[in-house]
């Protein structure tokens, strides 16, 4: 049994707005073991990003608030930690990369300076040592000519290259967990493949875990060992990746898998892409019962009345559905 690095238990991150509480994350539990890649999937607005940011306490408070739950990082709850203690965990133990590589780098410094800065704020290093550390990191993420490229500014890099720089920055302090918040969404497909490949390679080299947040099921199938499917602030299904694609149990998961575009099918039969009808319900006044009920074609009376709990349907496979 592998060591559990991150264990989120019943996390509720709510936001106070003028109209009331938005329950962005409403009782999410998930865990990540050392060395594994966990995929977190779901549509826009279902709480994936808020969950990820909660782990690093990057939520603005107010309006955000931890309503309930624990975030156990190697057995220690991070929610009560002070900002100074959080700064020590950030980058050194847990690092995060964002969706927008085009704007996530500071335009007024060279990339070398930025990587060196991360190194210097966590370790006692001279300027020279930090810069050579930055060169090493750029080499690690396969940027050609790292000795020269460290002196370049972000605008001299392409989107894929900038995401590599972001990964280099995030990994420069050798974190044990990398949270990748839709790292490939802003990139084109071939670059996406390279970045995913790179993350896989880094994971093997540095022995870290990855929490990969995405809405692309294809990406999940390619890279993850386990998958958590989120819907409207809740976990609806959790399974090893083979089980999820081989035997999806929740109607939402089934819908997500069916909505993956397939080049072969579309060309052969001029089939229309299957979409899940409707949109994510308002998290201001979430429905009492199953949150997916309004969009579910199998919905029954009981679905509207009460939220089904997660139940075990196979080894490591849990689903929140009465079916």
């Amino acid at each position: 049994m592998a060591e559990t690095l991150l264990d989120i238990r019943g996390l509720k991150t709510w936001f106070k707005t003028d109209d009331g509480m938005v329950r962005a994350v409403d009782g999410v539990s998930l865990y990540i073991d050392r060395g594994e890649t966990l995929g977190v999937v779901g549509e826009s607005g279902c709480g994936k990003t808020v969950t990820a940011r909660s782990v690093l306490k990057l939520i603005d408070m107010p309006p955000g608030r931890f309503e309930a739950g624990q975030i156990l990082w190697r057995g220690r709850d991070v929610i009560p930690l002070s900002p100074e203690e959080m700064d020590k965990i950030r980058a050194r133990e847990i690092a995060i990369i964002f969706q927008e590589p085009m704007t996530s780098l500071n335009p007024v410094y060279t990339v070398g300076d930025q990587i060196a800065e991360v190194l210097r704020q966590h370790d006692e290093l001279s300027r020279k040592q930090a810069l050579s550390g930055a060169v090493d990191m750029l080499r690690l993420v396969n940027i050609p000519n790292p000795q020269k490229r460290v002196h370049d500014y972000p605008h001299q890099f392409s989107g894929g290259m900038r995401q590599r720089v972001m990964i280099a920055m995030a990994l420069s302090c050798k974190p044990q967990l990398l949270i990748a918040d839709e790292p490939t969404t802003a990139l084109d497909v071939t670059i996406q493949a390279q970045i995913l490949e790179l993350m896989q390679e880094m994971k093997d080299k540095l022995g870290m875990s990855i929490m990969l947040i995405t809405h692309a099921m294809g990406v999940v199938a390619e890279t993850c060992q386990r998958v958590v499917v989120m819907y409207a602030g809740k976990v609806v299904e959790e399974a090893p990746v083979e089980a999820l694609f081989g035997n999806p149990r929740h109607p939402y998961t089934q819908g997500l898998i069916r909505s993956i575009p397939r080049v072969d099918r579309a060309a052969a039969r001029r089939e229309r892409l299957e979409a899940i009808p409707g949109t994510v319900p308002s998290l201001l006044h979430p429905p009492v019962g199953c949150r997916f009920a309004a969009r579910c074609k199998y919905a029954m009376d009981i679905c509207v009345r009460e939220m089904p709990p997660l139940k075990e349907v196979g080894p490591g496979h849990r689903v929140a559905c009465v079916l």
Partner: protein
Amino acid sequence: MAGLTPVSLTADPHTAAAVTDAPRKQARFSPTREAWRRFRKHRLAMVSSVVLGIILVAVLLGPLVWRVPINEIDFAAKLEGPSWAHPLGTDDLGQDVLARLLYGGRISLAVGFAAMLVACIMGVLVGAVAGMSRGSVDAALMWLADLFLSLPALPLLLLIIYMFRESLKGVFGPEGGVFIMVVAVIGGLRWMQVARLVRAQILSIREKEFIEAARALGASPVRQVVRHILPNALGPVIVAGTIDVAAAIIAESTLSFLGLGFPPDIPTWGRVLFDAKDTIDIAPHWAIFAGAAIFLTVLTINFIGDGLRDALDPRRVL
């Protein structure tokens, strides 16, 4: 997916190196260098830089070269027009106007730059604190800025100078005391614009992804401001600071013209203008040269500010 990777350009370091090597030699675009390239295209600003440079050199080194004393009284040669002995003529006591303007320029310019520094430092501090703290602290500081903006500057200047001139003279001597007072008063009444600028910049920059990224990688709030936000907010502050130099020079001239600035024996440009006004009908050169010195300096500084604004504005294509 894995099969796609080797297709990429970047996978092969040799070809990539060959492609990127050539252009890199000629251009390494740092923001400073880029701003300089854009600034050079602003012709008026370039001409102004040269003119201001000449004025600065003349004021700094001029008194060492033009060794005529500023207070050598010669009634035989009073109110003379320009001549070889006195290139800019003489005043009502027969003193050399060129020597007096060169010497007084030092003080006028020093007041301008020092007051600008005071205004910028205060403005950046107040603006940064307001922008980062938000909430009630922000509201209070901006309220204070509004309050200062609504004060009529000139009467306030006069009042402060009347109240504190004597006590400051006692502590720092007649010249030092007045210098400190004038700089503090002018700078202290001009920080509001800079504070508002910096606050607005911080409010927009602090929401950018790269600040979030810095925060996610463990940068403390102070570090976020000093290392990441302020350097990005510097452009407008530099422009505002440039304009402030000109405004401070004008303010100092006004004070001197009203006889409230430096003691009468120190010929700042405003003071010279004040002394010249009574004889403007018989000896116009005296007032014209003093006025021209102020006019040229302020005008060139404003043009340079214009050029800097264009050069530092990323939305403008140059």
